[in-house]
């Protein structure tokens, strides 16, 4: 039996550690023991496969997927697009990308959100799509608003879109947040600042992409996502210990 080739070890120095006291909720929710390092078997290198039967073509259009007929949400119309790649710079095709966000006023459509900014009757705030053969994805939405949250008394989240990506193996599973170029709240956000590596933070900031902008309609931001890469199978077809 040949053993599957592993994914590259995760570079944990660019991810936030579990315990980040500046983000208070992490204090009681962070493991204290060391994790057990696990080399990969089929349990790790496989993962769920999604297809076009799972979702609908309009699921990636947040301007229309919850709007009443003939109406659309309030806010700056944007295209959020990019590619899902792996660390080898290869596209990750046919993978599920799910997003969720606040509306243009910074309010979430969620039973637990009580912020005084109003719900937008024409905005749900979630979308999903599959990457194409080149790893490309696109959403149409409104730019989310900043909003206050309870951490220190006066903390505000920068405008952000939550992004969930699968990849092809369960080890690639990732949830992150996409920020927007030029937002002055980014460097003072306790959640952004859980990330110890400045370049890793920079990689979470979507860039204004004038070439992808639709004139007189929607402005575009580009956000590429990188998932873990995998070793080539060369030299790996022998049993362990041989």
């Amino acid at each position: 039996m040949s053993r599957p080739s592993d994914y590259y070890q995760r570079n944990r120095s660019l991810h936030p550690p579990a315990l980040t006291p500046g983000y208070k909720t992490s204090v009681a929710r962070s493991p204290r023991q060391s994790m057990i390092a696990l080399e990969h078997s089929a349990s790790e290198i496989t993962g769920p496969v999604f297809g076009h039967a799972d979702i609908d073509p309009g699921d990636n259009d947040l301007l229309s997927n919850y709007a009443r007929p003939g109406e659309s949400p309030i806010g700056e119309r944007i295209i959020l697009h990019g590619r899902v790649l792996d660390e080898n710079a290869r596209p990750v095709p046919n993978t599920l990308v799910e997003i969720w966000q606040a509306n243009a006023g910074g309010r979430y459509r969620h039973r637990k959100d009580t912020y005084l900014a109003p719900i937008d009757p024409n905005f749900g705030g979630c979308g999903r799509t599959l990457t194409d053969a080149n790893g490309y994805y696109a959403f149409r939405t409104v730019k989310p608003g900043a909003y206050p949250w309870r951490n220190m008394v006066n903390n505000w989240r920068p405008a952000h879109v939550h992004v969930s990506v699968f990849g092809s193996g369960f080890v690639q599973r990732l949830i992150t947040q996409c920020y927007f170029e030029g937002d002055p709240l980014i460097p003072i956000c306790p959640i952004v600042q859980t990330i110890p590596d400045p370049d890793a933070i920079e990689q979470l900031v979507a860039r204004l992409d004038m070439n992808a902008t639709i004139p007189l309609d929607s402005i575009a931001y580009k956000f590429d996502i990188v998932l873990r890469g995998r070793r080539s199978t060369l030299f790996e077809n022998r049993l362990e210990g041989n």
Partner: protein
Amino acid sequence: MPQSLDYLRETASQTAGPYVHIGLAPGAAGFDIYRRELGHDIAGPAVRGERIRIEGQVIDGTGSPVKDVLIEVWQANADGHYAHPEGGGAVEEGFRGWGRVISDFDTGIWALDTIKPGPVPWRDARMQAPHLNLWIVARGINLGLNTRLYFDDHAEENAADPVLNLIEWASRRQTLIAARSERDGQTVYRFDIRLQGEGETVFFDI
């Protein structure tokens, strides 16, 4: 110019936050938007295997249940095959092997209905005991936590499991073993996940 290693760097993780339901389980957030929410069909009605329910809580370092957690499960079918091109073999119609559950907003209890998986090969000729792979995200969790669930009625296979045996402390292996009981004619396994403190669950760096 020196040779360059032209790898990209993985995108950094950020917490799923308190409103993860909007994106991944909108019905729980309080609205209906998609034709079908994903993750409710781990093993369809035609799938072979022992039908089981798994339920539990995620407990934080203060001993309180986490009421806004989301867990994804990834498992093999009764033959030990994953529904994936490299999954070890074909799976029957209706077997997906992937599910997504959230905890109750009031009690923190989560539950999932599935079938018990078969053993899966390890990296050598040994087999791994039947197990579920779990991925846990929530507000306050900066990077999703990976753990595994094993079954207490497979004691012999668990004792030989190559992954459980990587855990140096035998007492900590117990944190990964779900406890079987029967309730109203249904098999229920209890599996609590302790994020921190006494009895802290073993998490894996995979």
